[in-house]
C-alpha cells in the first residue's frame, strides 16, 4: 500500500540501496561513457555561454548587476521589511522573496493540519463524512489551481462588503474587500520589564517542576506546594505590569477617508492565496495521510483499543506516529510543490517573487538574464532547503522506529 502513495517522494530523501550486483566493472568502457558525458555537458554549457555573450554584444543590451542598487520606483502592496518607492531593486527583491517564503510557510502549516483532518475524515466511520471528504479531495485535486485561485479571489472574496459596510468583530477587527484589519500591538516602555518578567516566571515554573520531579525520584515524596510555579509565572508579569505600566497599547483600526487606518492590515490577495493553496495542498496531503494510516497494521489499533484506550488516543498515540514514517518523505515533495505553486500568485496580484521581481522589475530594467537567473536560483535554493530539512527530519523519524 505504501508504494501507492500519491505523490512523488522528495528528491534525495533516500539513498539508493547499495548495489548488490556489480553489473559494470569500472573498465575502460565505463570511463569512456562517463568521460564523454562530462565532455558533452561541458560543450553544451560552453556553447550556450558563448552564444549568450555574443548575442548580448550583438543586440546592444545592457548587462550587469548594477541595477540592484538603483531605486525601484514602484510600490509593493505587502512588505514585511521597510520598503518604499525609493528603495533599491535589491530591497524589492528581498521583500518579494519574503512574501513568497511567508506565504509558502503558512500554507504548508495550514495544509498539513487540514490535510490530516481530511485524511482522517476519509477514514471516518461516518460514511457521509467520509464521502464528503472524498468528494473534497477529488474535486480539489482535479481542477487546475489557477482556476481555484480565481474562484477564491474573485468569486468568494469579491462578495465581501466595501470598507464603509465592513464586517466588524468586537470593535478590534474589520473585514472588507480591501482586506482584514486587526488591532495591532504597539510597544510601550513597559514592554521590556514585562517580557523579562514573563520569561523569568516561565523559567521559574519549569525549574520548579524539574526540581520537584528530581525530589520525587530521590525521596519518593511528592513535593507539595504546587501553586508556587503558576504563581511565579502569572504573578511576576502582573507585578511588572503594575510597576512599569502596560507593556503594549493597541492600535485599533479606524475608518478614515477611503479605508481603515491603523492596526495591522492583511491584504485580500494574501488571504486568497492562503485559502487557495491550503485547500489545494491539503487535498494531496490528505491522500498521503490516508495511505499512511492504512499502511499501519490494523493489529496496532486493535491492541490499543484492547488496552482500553479511547479511540482518539489510539489514533494520536499509536496510529499517527507510525503512519508518519510513511507520510513524511512524500510530504516534503508536497511542500516543494506548494512553494512552486505559490508562483501562480502573480495571476491574482499577490506580490511574490514572480510578480514583483520576475515581473515588474524585469519589465522596468529590461535585464531578463540577470533577473531570471536570480529568480530561478532563489526558487532552487528554497526547494533544496526544504529537501535538506525534510531529510534531516526524516532521519529522526526513522530512527524512532528502531
Amino acid at each position, binding site marked *: 500500500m505504501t508504494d501507492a502513495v500519491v505523490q512523488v517522494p522528495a528528491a534525495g530523501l533516500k539513498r539508493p540501496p547499495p548495489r548488490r550486483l556489480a553489473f559494470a566493472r569500472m573498465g575502460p568502457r565505463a570511463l569512456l561513457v562517463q568521460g564523454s558525458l562530462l565532455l558533452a555537458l561541458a560543450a553544451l554549457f560552453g556553447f550556450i555561454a558563448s552564444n549568450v555573450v555574443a548575442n548580448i554584444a550583438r*543586440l546592444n543590451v545592457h548587462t550587469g548587476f548594477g541595477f540592484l542598487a538603483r531605486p525601484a520606483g*514602484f510600490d509593493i502592496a505587502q512588505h514585511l521589511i521597510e520598503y518604499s518607492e525609493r528603495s533599491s531593486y535589491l530591497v524589492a527583491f528581498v521583500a518579494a522573496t519574503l512574501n513568497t517564503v511567508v506565504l509558502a510557510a503558512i500554507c504548508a502549516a495550514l495544509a498539513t493540519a487540514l490535510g490530516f483532518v481530511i485524511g482522517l475524515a476519509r477514514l471516518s466511520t461516518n460514511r457521509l463524512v467520509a464521502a464528503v471528504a472524498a468528494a473534497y479531495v477529488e474535486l480539489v485535486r482535479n481542477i487546475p489551481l489557477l482556476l481555484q485561485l480565481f474562484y477564491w479571489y474573485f468569486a468568494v472574496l469579491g462578495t465581501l462588503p466595501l470598507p464603509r459596510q465592513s464586517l466588524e468583530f468586537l470593535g478590534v477587527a474589520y473585514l472588507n474587500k480591501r482586506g482584514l484589519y486587526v488591532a495591532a500591538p504597539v510597544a510601550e516602555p513597559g514592554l521590556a520589564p514585562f517580557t523579562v518578567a514573563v520569561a523569568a516566571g516561565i523559567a521559574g515554573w519549569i525549574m520548579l517542576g524539574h526540581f520537584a520531579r528530581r525530589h520525587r525520584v530521590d525521596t519518593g515524596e511528592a513535593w507539595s506546594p504546587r501553586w508556587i510555579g503558576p504563581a511565579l509565572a502569572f504573578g511576576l508579569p502582573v507585578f511588572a505590569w503594575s510597576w512599569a505600566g502596560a507593556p503594549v497599547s493597541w492600535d485599533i483600526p479606524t475608518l*478614515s477617508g477611503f479605508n481603515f487606518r491603523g492596526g495591522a492590515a492583511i491584504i485580500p490577495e494574501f488571504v486568497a492565496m492562503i485559502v487557495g493553496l491550503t485547500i489545494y495542498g491539503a487535498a494531496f496531503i490528505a491522500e498521503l495521510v490516508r495511505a499512511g494510516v492504512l499502511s499501519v497494521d490494523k493489529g496496532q489499533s486493535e491492541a490499543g483499543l484492547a488496552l482500553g484506550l479511547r479511540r482518539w488516543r489510539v489514533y494520536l498515540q499509536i496510529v499517527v506516529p507510525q503512519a508518519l514514517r510513511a507520510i513524511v518523505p512524500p510530504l516534503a515533495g508536497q511542500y516543494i510543490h506548494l512553494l512552486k505553486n505559490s508562483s501562480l500568485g502573480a495571476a491574482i496580484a499577490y506580490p511574490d517573487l514572480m510578480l514583483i521581481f520576475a515581473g515588474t522589475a524585469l519589465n522596468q530594467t529590461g535585464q531578463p538574464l540577470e533577473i531570471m537567473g536570480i529568480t530561478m536560483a532563489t526558487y532552487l535554493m528554497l526547494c533544496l532547503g526544504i529537501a535538506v530539512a525534510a531529510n534531516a527530519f526524516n532521519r529522526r523519524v526513522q530512527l524512532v522506529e528502531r
Partner: protein
Amino acid sequence: MVVRNIVFFGAMAAAAVWSAAEAATLDDVKARNVVRCGTAPNNPGFAFPDNQGKFRGFDIDFCHALAAAVFGDASKIETRVAEPRDAFTMLTAGTVDVLTHRFTWTYNRDNGSGVEFPMAIFYDGQGFMVRKSLGVKSVNELKGAAICVAQGTTTELNVADYFNAHAMQYKIVAFNGTDATRLAYDEGRCDAWSNDRGSLASRSVALKTPGDHVILPETISKEPIGPVVRQGDDQWSHIVRWTYYATIAAEELGVTSANVDELRKGSTNPEVKRLLGVGDNLGQKLGLSADWAYNVIKAIGNYGEIFDRNIGDKSPLRLGLGLNALWRDGGLMIAPPIR
C-alpha cells in the same frame, strides 16, 4: 537525447557564419513570407480574438498594414500574443519582428534595452476611474485610496510619482494583466482604477454597470504609444515608421480605402500621387515596391478609418479621437511631408 542535441547544435553552430552581421529584418521577413507581430493579450478593440478566433483590432490592423507594405498582401501576418513582461525580450531575441503593442514610448525603453520606437501612433494619458458614489471629483481627493493597476506597465511608476509629488498616501494593487485589473476594480478591491484613458474607456464597457463609474478629469501622464522594433536595423525601423505615417498622410489627404483606386487613376494632387506611387517610386528607398502605400490604404484604410472601425464610432467601444485627431483638427496626428 542530450548527446544528439549537442551534436546537432554543434553542427548548426559551425555552419552558422559566426561573425556575420545579423541578417536585416526585411530580408528575414521576405524569406519567411510573413510578418511576425507581438500584440497585447486580449485587449478589446486593440487586439482580441473574435467569434471565429481570428485576431482583430487596432493593433492587428497595423500589423496587416506592414504585411501590405512589404508583400502587397495584408493577410501575410502571424500575430504572437506577448505578455508585457515578455514582450521586449521576445523582440530583442528575435521571436517577433515588431511589437504592435500598447507600449508607451519612454526614454529608458528607447535607450539601452536593445529596442527603439520609430514613432507614436496613439496618444493617450493616464487617468483614474472611480465610482460615482464615492463623490470624488479630482485625483487630489484620492488621499489614502487603494489603486488597481496592471503590472509591468508604466502605470505603476506614474502613480508612484504622482502621489509622491503631491505627498499623498496610497495603496497600489498590481495585477498581471489588464483584464484581471478591471475585474478586481469592479469587485471593489480598489477605490480607483488607473490606466491609459483610452484603455479605461474601452474596458469600462465590461464593467457590471458602466454608468456607475466616472473617469476623473486629471491626466497624470502623457502616453505616446507606438510600435517597437529592434535597435540597429534602420531599414526596418523606417519601413515601420513610414507605413504608419502613410495611414496618417492618407487621412490628411482624404485618401480612403474606398476611393484609393479612383484617386490613383485620376488624382491631380501631387502629394497624393507621390503617396500612391504614381509617377514616382518612393518605395524603392525603403526596399519596397512603388505601390507600397497604395497597398496599405487599399487593404486597411487610413488612420481615421482604422480608428473608427476598431475603437471609434463604428465599434462597440466608441472612443473619442481626442489627441488622435489630425493636427489641423486640434489633435497630435501629423505625418511628415511625403516628398
